[in-house]
């Protein structure tokens, strides 16, 4: 018996997707415009004299319109990510890979880059011809023009990305430090590489979500499918294969490469219109083809999703922009001053809102307890500051030992803005 050598790694086959026109292509372009207007436009929005959305990592403050998030608010980011995850699960269970086909950045940027490619190198057939022909002036000109425009779009994308972390109004003057330049370059390179070169390879080999979303699929999940019962209507024009950005033949049934972009539906509908057969030889349908949306899987995802969304909104509405820590001085137990037992604390105040406040101090928990803060207890907006706090009770008012006391900080101009912290008061023997 003869032996032969097989390769564990194969050269990638270049895909030249043909432009699809139709309902779903239009929908995708709507998604491209919507997502990119948000992405490229958001950093330019101003709010109360500052950038509306700015993630200031150096000073660890994260501005989202009226909200100022601090590192202590990280739980909200976790909640947001969980919401995104369950939202994706829910969408996937009902509508399959709708996200992949219409809203995923990989799809959106590939769409933009392919549009540029078409404008410069021409349609599918011209692109194939160009790649096969030897190098000449025309080929060099077209290829360099394409990569130049790709590069510019990528750089603008990288610049915009950095604009979320460094005020973009300053960034526009390119007053960047080394790290900003690094991230502009990194993000630009990622955009250029992923949308220009890697394209479907990202979905096929790199994206973890593409791999595990099959676990959310069932027979009622919306998929792009070829209607085998109508196979006599297929004129074998292969348009569905030519338009496919992942290079598969949908007539072979559901495949893991399919990102549900519906380019083949648009392509097939166009051909069906021309030959005068009804549309829908390839269409969005489900395995069961009965359109049952409410099933245990969907209900469970929905309940989880809406519960977390409600919890998130509730938590955000309850969030007080004031954080207080009362930390006992470790140096001393307590001391006697003017007939009072005195304990010293460090009052750590984070005024996370952007408005300055003056606060009143109040202590409870022991008879005759009084709190002495510092000055007028005025704290600037969006600052954190530690000041000394003294609590005192009359000698004899409390037994020796430790007692729990409550310290309340309340804004003078807004009684609803208050925080109560428990601290330990020690009466020495």
């Amino acid at each position, binding site marked *: *018996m003869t032996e*032969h050598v097989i390769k564990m*790694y194969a050269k*990638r086959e270049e895909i030249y997707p043909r432009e699809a026109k139709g309902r779903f292509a239009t929908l995708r372009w709507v998604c491209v415009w919507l997502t990119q207007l948000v992405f490229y436009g958001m950093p330019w929005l101003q709010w109360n004299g500052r950038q509306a959305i700015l993630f200031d990592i150096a000073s660890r403050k994260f501005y989202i319109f009226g909200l100022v998030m601090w590192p202590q608010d990280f739980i909200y980011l976790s909640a947001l990510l969980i919401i995104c995850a369950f939202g994706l699960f829910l969408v996937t269970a009902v509508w399959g890979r709708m996200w992949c086909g219409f809203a995923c950045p990989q799809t959106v940027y590939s769409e933009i880059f392919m549009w540029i490619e078409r404008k410069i190198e021409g349609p599918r057939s011209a692109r194939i011809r160009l790649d096969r022909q030897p190098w000449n002036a025309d080929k060099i000109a077209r290829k360099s023009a394409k990569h130049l425009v790709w590069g510019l779009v990528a750089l603008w994308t990288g610049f915009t990305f950095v604009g979320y972390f460094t005020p973009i109004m300053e960034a526009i003057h390119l007053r960047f430090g080394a790290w900003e330049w690094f991230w502009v370059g990194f993000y630009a390179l990622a955009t250029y590489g992923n949308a220009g070169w890697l394209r479907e390879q990202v979905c096929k080999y790199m994206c973890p979500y593409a791999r595990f979303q099959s676990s959310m699929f069932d027979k009622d999940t919306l998929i792009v499918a070829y209607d085998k019962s109508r196979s006599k209507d297929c004129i074998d024009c292969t348009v569905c294969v030519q338009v496919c950005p992942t290079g598969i033949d949908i007539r072979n049934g559901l495949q893991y490469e399919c990102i549900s972009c519906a380019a083949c539906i648009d392509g097939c509908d166009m051909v069906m219109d021309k030959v005068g057969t009804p549309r829908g030889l390839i269409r969005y349908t489900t395995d069961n083809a009965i359109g049952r949306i409410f099933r245990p899987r969907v209900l469970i995802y929905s309940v989880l999703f809406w519960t977390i969304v409600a919890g998130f909104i509730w938590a955000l509405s309850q969030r007080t922009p004031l954080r207080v820590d009362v930390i006992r001085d470790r*140096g001393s137990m307590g001391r006697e001053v003017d007939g009072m037992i005195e304990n010293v604390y460090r009052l750590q105040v984070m005024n996370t809102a952007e408005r300055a406040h003056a606060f009143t101090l109040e202590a409870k928990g022991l008879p005759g307890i009084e709190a002495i803060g510092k000055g007028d207890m005025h704290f600037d907006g969006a600052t954190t500051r530690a000041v000394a706090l003294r609590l005192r009770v009359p000698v004899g008012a409390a037994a020796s030992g430790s007692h729990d006391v409550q310290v309340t900080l309340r804004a003078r101009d807004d009684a609803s803005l208050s925080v109560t912290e428990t601290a330990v008061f020690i009466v020495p023997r």
Partner: protein
Amino acid sequence: MADFTSSFWNWFIAVITILSVVGCGILLWSQSTHTVKEGQGLTTGHVWDGDLEELNTPMPRWWMWLFYLTIVFGLAYLVLYPGLGSYAGTLGWASTSAYKHELKVAEADYGPLFQKYAKQDIKAVAADPQAMAIGERLFMTYCAQCHGSDARGNKGYPNLADKDWLHGGTPEAIKTTILNGRNGMMPPMVAAVGDEKDLDNLAHYVRSLSGLPSDPVKTVLGKPKFSACMACHSGGGTGNVALGAPNLADKIWLYGSSEETIKETVRKGRTNTMPAFHDFLGEPKVHVLSAYVWSLSQ
């Protein structure tokens, strides 16, 4: 500098690291092709549930190049940075030099601000709200451990918010104290005072200086014993700022005013150290800190 006493461990680590990197390369190269019998190789040969076979679909080639790239990266890293035993790397990177660099960057950021204040009079600095905010943070970070968050001191650590100063309360004296530190030393004086009875009498006399309740007879008997203390605490017990000797005639007591405490102080002496911050913080920061501390008692 090696962390081990024997150079064996340096070689041990270096050889294992190099062998692992090279081994990864060999594994990658040897596994990129397989020789199989004709008609085989479509599946990996793994079968589940009797008939579920794993297809041998090849990975894209660029993926393999990424693997090789990580090996190149790893080798380049090992040449540039410390990683192979005690080899320091051609860049000479070390965490200590990285730390020094960070300090330099911070100095470039904040240095000019402190330099600006360093040129001003301490009292002028104390009138500057921004400087006082900085001073407050410096105090909370470097001073509050001993002197308390409210600067009112603890037993053995002076109160900085009152008008009583062991070594002088002028802005300049405070700055000198912070820059150079202070050593407070009261020697054990019991030998010069006499026996237990004399000590007891002396304690009563010392208490009487600040108007604390004391036995009148013991006070009278204790007064001559105070001659042993006058060299430092002066005749009326009012202390001596030049020596850092506390005023015994006021209501402020560093260690306590009870008879027992006073006797213990005389019997055993007291030693107190305020560390010097000149080398640690630098003069410009101490200047701002001095202004803050001075402002506390104004």
